[in-house]
């Protein structure tokens, strides 16, 4: 369906609620003309409009500059509901609950790293389970697994490895409240238990990157990013556990609510936050979020141990410091200014990143002056970016930003496109070493399969929702 867009700025477009009787709010898209056209072509605009038809939406249905087609709710979508009488949508979070990114800074010069890059790649691939249904290095009984689900990254720091000081650099301290094990299905326990501490497959990765460009020296200094040094980025989520939680609650919501909902897409099934099924989903969502934070914490510690061994130096000497860990598939209770009043909201971000501005009380004290780091990874072989939250973003997007590039080619097209290419060799020529157990997986994730991350970041900055701090160039990629 062709929509009439009101151009608010070159980077901001609106479908007004008056143009469609079903809409209860406006749909607002942060995009360049080109990104907007792509979003119309792949029907993701309709998904933003569908969300704008839900009752009780606070503000507008929003889409970030990396908008692309998802299930029901577009990737890059943001929607907020009143915390007391609003809705919760599993489709507004996505299947991989708390899929997210963690970034570590270091004082290791990229040149020095190049000499050991291969050894580091082999060691990571050997140590960390990657790919399809890997078995964890951790044999956890149900009691231990439950402690991870309730403690998240804090449980790992307390009883496995890591530093308590890191927790303030994890969104929500790496732990959301969970104390009702009965809301998790036996299947979710079965799927999740053996996957703690694993990377997974698809677009999940571990990268060693070089800090290539600094745009905001003050913020980069505060974040500990120095040009020429390496940084380590981890992208993974809650593995099969989060997927099972999402599937289970989409079923539960269907059974309880579908009969009386008039939805354009059954993936937009929802429940009242205060309803028993809504409350149970939020508990299960927190458990899956904690799984993901624990997972990234374990992976970080595995990588730190490998670097310490290979460089024969401790983490302090290597300057290995957590910059930030953030979710990009989550729904959380937050306070935001709405029409001049502070309101408690449940903010859904699906393929979108929280980006709190300078001065926000929930930003770690060390970063409070410059704002929360916003991590936007590129595809395998392309640059990634660190940005920072802004006051403008807090005002326009419930403090949300983009989360990545988004696919351009299907997996099948990507495999076909790269059929005559030695992917590893091509990337090596561009200075990127790639390690993966799966040749097929590597071909599916070729850089050409993704949109240009530079375009997404340019719109993100031009629209004012986040500001660039640094650009990172991949040196070593470990793919699932």
């Amino acid at each position, binding site marked *: 369906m062709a929509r009439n867009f009101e151009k608010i700025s070159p980077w901001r477009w609106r479908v007004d609620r008056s143009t469609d009787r079903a809409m209860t709010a406006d749909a607002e898209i942060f995009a360049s003309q080109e990104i907007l056209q792509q979003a119309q072509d792949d029907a993701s605009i309709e998904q933003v409009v569908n969300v704008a038809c839900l009752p009780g939406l606070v503000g507008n249905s929003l889409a970030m500059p990396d908008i*692309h*087609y998802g*299930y029901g709710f577009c990737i890059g979508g943001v929607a907020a509901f009143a915390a007391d009488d609003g809705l919760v949508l599993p489709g507004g979070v996505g*299947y991989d609950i708390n899929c997210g990114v963690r970034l570590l800074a270091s004082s290791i010069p990229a040149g020095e790293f190049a000499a050991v890059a291969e050894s580091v790649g082999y060691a990571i691939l050997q140590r960390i389970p990657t*790919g399809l249904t890997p078995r964890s290095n951790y044999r956890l009984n149900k009691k231990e697994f439950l402690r991870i689900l309730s403690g998240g990254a804090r449980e790992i720091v307390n009883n496995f490895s890591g530093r308590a000081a890191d927790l303030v650099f994890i969104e929500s301290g790496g732990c959301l409240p969970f104390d009702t094990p009965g809301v998790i299905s036996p299947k979710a326990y079965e799927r999740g238990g053996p996957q703690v501490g694993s990377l*997974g497959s698809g677009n999940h990765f571990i990268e060693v990157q070089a800090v290539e460009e600094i745009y905001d020296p003050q913020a980069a200094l505060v974040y500990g990013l120095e040009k020429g040094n390496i940084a380590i980025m981890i992208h993974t989520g809650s593995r099969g556990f989060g*997927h099972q939680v999402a599937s289970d609650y989409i079923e539960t919501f269907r059974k309880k609510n579908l009969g009386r909902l008039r939805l354009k897409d059954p993936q937009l099934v929802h429940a009242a936050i205060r309803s028993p099924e809504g409350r149970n989903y939020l508990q299960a969502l927190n458990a899956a979020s904690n799984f993901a934070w624990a997972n990234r914490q374990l992976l970080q510690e595995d990588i730190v141990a490998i670097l310490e061994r290979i460089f024969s130096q401790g983490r302090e000497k290597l300057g290995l410091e957590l910059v930030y860990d953030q979710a990009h598939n989550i729904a959380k209770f937050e306070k935001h200014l709405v029409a001049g009043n502070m309101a408690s909201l449940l903010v859904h971000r699906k393929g979108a990143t929280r980006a709190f501005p300078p001065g926000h009380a929930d930003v770690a004290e060390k970063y409070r002056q410059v704002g929360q780091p916003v991590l936007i990874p590129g595809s395998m072989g392309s640059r990634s970016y660190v940005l920072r939250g802004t006051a403008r973003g807090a005002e326009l997007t419930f403090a949300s930003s983009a989360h990545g590039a988004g696919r351009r080619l299907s997996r099948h097209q990507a495999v076909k496109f790269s059929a005559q290419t030695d992917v590893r060799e091509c990337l090596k020529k561009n200075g990127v070493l790639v390690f993966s157990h799966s040749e097929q997986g590597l071909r599916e994730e070729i850089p050409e399969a993704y949109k240009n991350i530079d375009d997404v970041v340019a719109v993100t900055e031009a629209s004012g929702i986040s500001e660039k701090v640094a650009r990172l160039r991949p040196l070593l990629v470990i793919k699932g």
Partner: protein
Amino acid sequence: MGNYEIFATTADMGIRFKGRDFRGLYENALAGLNLLLFGSRRRKIHGHESAYFSYCGDGPENVLVNFLAEILSLAYQKKKQVVALAFVHADGCRLEARLQLAPCPFEPKVDIKSATYHNLRVQEHNGMKSAAVVFDV
């Protein structure tokens, strides 16, 4: 298409299938998913094990998603391929069948995490029922 085929969306993959009745529809859904997971058309395999599947839902979409989720769970968690179905009962709201299982010939070719309801509608045209299920990959 024949009775089943694979299709790709930008980010994910799915299967299209059809059947003269619900038995045919469920059988071809299984065949399509096996093609996606193991890359082969129907194989004549006689499984030595079996499992009982029973689901009562609110419509054929609901039954399909849960049936396919069970096949995925057997493939990834139990390393078993469902090679045949012996129906006890099959209609739009209920499926009961004995699933004949064989060890997975190899790791599934795709890491499918979930079967989704995305745009899923069982349609009927010229006496044929058809549907398309998108999987979260």
